[in-house]
């Protein structure tokens, strides 16, 4: 089934069908985004599935995904459009003999010579798309200001050509790791969604969805450990994707239980810094050795 989300429930179930278990607010906001035609600003710590949400929305609605990955120094030429100057030069050279300047000028600033970059592509396609502007906080404020026109009116002004208006309304998701405060102007144009690490139960469902063969007991223990690891002061806390990876790894290894030994052998899947590894081994590994985590499970 494709097309717009009809209700909140519809949004949630269709996202679940494509492998994304959306929380209460995530389902509601994606539904509203389609209804109101507004971009969504998704914020939250790294690895909670912000980018994945956009991919899931594109799969669930049957729209194709256009992704603009932001980085420091991203400019209009790479995000919006650029004139294909090589082609323009060739054109000028082939026409140099006969044609007057007037003809050439009218000629070389046409759509034929325009290289469209993600934003222009998203706006000018005939099929509705999902536009993902990833890690918007990595760019500078100037770029944000440039986005405003695209996000509020869904149009792009090209000085030499005029205004390109959207033929269909793209579903826009912007993600941010909150490494920098975004401007008020940008926020005002967006719906806001804060994604956080899921609760133990929800993450268990997620793990179960992606690694269904894993034993229920092991999966629960795994998720509890991941949550304990996240509570430590780490350089990079484990993401949801990493707990899924870990679950799959345990499956491959045929682990019967998550004990201290298994944790120490496989924890490089969820922890990626040397200093973090030591910390996790010290804090979590020892608790596992004492069997404290098992106790908590029975009590909770």
């Amino acid at each position, binding site marked *: 089934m494709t097309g717009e989300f009809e209700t909140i429930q519809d949004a949630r179930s269709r996202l679940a069908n494509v492998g994304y278990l959306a929380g209460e*607010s995530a389902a*509601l*906001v994606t*539904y509203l985004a389609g209804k*109101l035609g507004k971009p969504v600003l998704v914020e939250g710590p790294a690895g909670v599935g912000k980018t994945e949400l956009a991919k899931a929305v594109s799969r669930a609605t049957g729209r194709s995904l256009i992704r603009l990955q932001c980085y420091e120094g991203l400019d209009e030429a790479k995000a919006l459009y650029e004139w294909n100057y090589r082609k323009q030069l060739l054109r000028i050279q082939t026409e140099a003999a006969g044609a007057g300047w007037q003809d050439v000028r009218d000629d070389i600033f046409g759509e034929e010579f325009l290289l469209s970059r993600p934003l222009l592509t998203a706006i000018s396609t005939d099929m509705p798309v999902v536009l993902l502007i990833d890690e918007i906080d990595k760019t500078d404020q100037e770029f944000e200001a440039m986005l405003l026109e695209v996000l509020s009116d869904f149009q792009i002004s090209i000085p030499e050509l005029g205004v390109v208006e959207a033929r269909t309304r793209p579903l826009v998701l912007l993600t941010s790791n909150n490494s920098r405060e975004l401007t*008020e102007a940008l926020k*005002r144009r967006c*719906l806001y969604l804060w994604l956080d690490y899921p609760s133990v139960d929800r993450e268990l469902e997620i793990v179960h969805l992606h690694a269904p063969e894993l034993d229920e007991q092991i999966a629960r223990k795994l998720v509890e450990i991941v949550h304990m690891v996240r509570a430590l*002061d780490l350089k990079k806390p484990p993401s949801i994707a990493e707990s899924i990876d870990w679950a799959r790894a345990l499956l491959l290894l045929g682990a019967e239980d998550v004990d201290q030994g298994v944790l120490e052998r496989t924890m490089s899947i969820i922890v990626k810094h040397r200093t973090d590894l030591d910390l996790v081994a010290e804090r979590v590994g020892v608790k596992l050795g004492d069997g404290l985590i098992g106790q908590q499970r029975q009590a909770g």
Partner: protein
Amino acid sequence: MPEASGPAGMAPRLLEFADELRREGVAVGTSELLDAIHALDAVSWTSREDFQESLAATLAKSQEDRHVLDVLFDRFFFRAVEREAVERGLTETRFRGGADLDLDALRDRIREAIRAGSDGEMRDLARLAIAAFGRQGEGSGVIGVDVQRIRRTLGLKAEKSGGEMLDPDGVPRERLQEFEQHVRRELERQMIERTQSLPPAKPLREFDRALPSNPAQDLSQVHRVVAQLKKRLASHGREHRGRRRSWQVDVRRTMRASLQTGGVPLELKYRPKRPRRPELYVLCDVSTSVTSASVFFLSVLHALHDQFRKLRSFVFVERISEVTDVFERERSFEAVSRRIATDAGVADVSGYTDYGRVWLEFLDKVVDDLDPRSTVIVLGDARTNGREPHAQVFGRVAQGAGRTFWINPEPRLYWNYGDSVMAAYEPHCDGVFECWTTKQLEGFVNAIAELRTAA
């Protein structure tokens, strides 16, 4: 637009709610209000969660705003319902059987309900508890006091944090707070019924506004702000001066520009110069007069080490000592503070800061390394304990370095009172700031950026 927004009367209510949000510092614009009204058109009103989430998605644009909105939402719609009740003269038959209640049975049921986290049951039991409590006198009249008195009478206490030892009597802290919230609500409701009027809405207390936090989170906030600081320092605009000769021509952009002149490259475009990596010297006062601030300072230092490679850090009391390698070796913040407390060897005999001596020693250590690219940041209260401040020595440090900033943990009001000699050092600095919270640290980072545009 009001016609489009469901039952009449919703739009004005929403405006009132927006007003209340604005009073609490959430910037709600007209366009956001319109969005909220449209959003409420699209969701069902019967689900309280959907209603609240829709408002949150359209009105609150950060996590802090979201928290304020949640708190206000509860209060606002509670008050709206109560006002309606007062206007229409509705009262509830109050539960009168309080005298016959078995307190022990009630206590057990409440504890169970709190553990199970069932919202409706907790509310009912809150009423029962108030009724049971009522027979022991009508209460103090101050709701906050009554809530705590009821909690104590019921013998409810929160679990010890950490969760290492399971306490059979304890209940989860958040749930207990929920229950207290219910008791508070019910008491307020009874008070409104008695007096037939709504108490005036009070602004939120700082405590309610603040997001629930822990030391690790505070640390991560400092880290976030310092990451901004790095960006600001790195893009500091001193790279353009007097070095045009060594610039490289950017062929692609030059060709592109030449199109406007028919393919003749009249205007040369250059490759942008990458800024050089800043060198940072941070001096941190760890004496007793700044004890409360020094944890904050050390966490700033800790965060700086995460971000900058060319950073040398020093701590001082009477003498100065370089601790760069301590920060580089130790990752955990606790270990760093412990190491500094034991091995830095900065306190001599008295334990009082001696700024003058610190400058002399610092200059001696780094005089050959300071150059105009380096930035010196001092974290300290400038209290010399009556010793010679040696401001001219500090001046030489500042001269050698490109920029010097001073961060003082005391409010500006206290500067230059007593033994504080901030005025002696201030002229040598490019900027002095009062700063003891992450918020002010952000202010410092922004101020640096503004200094740059002014220069």
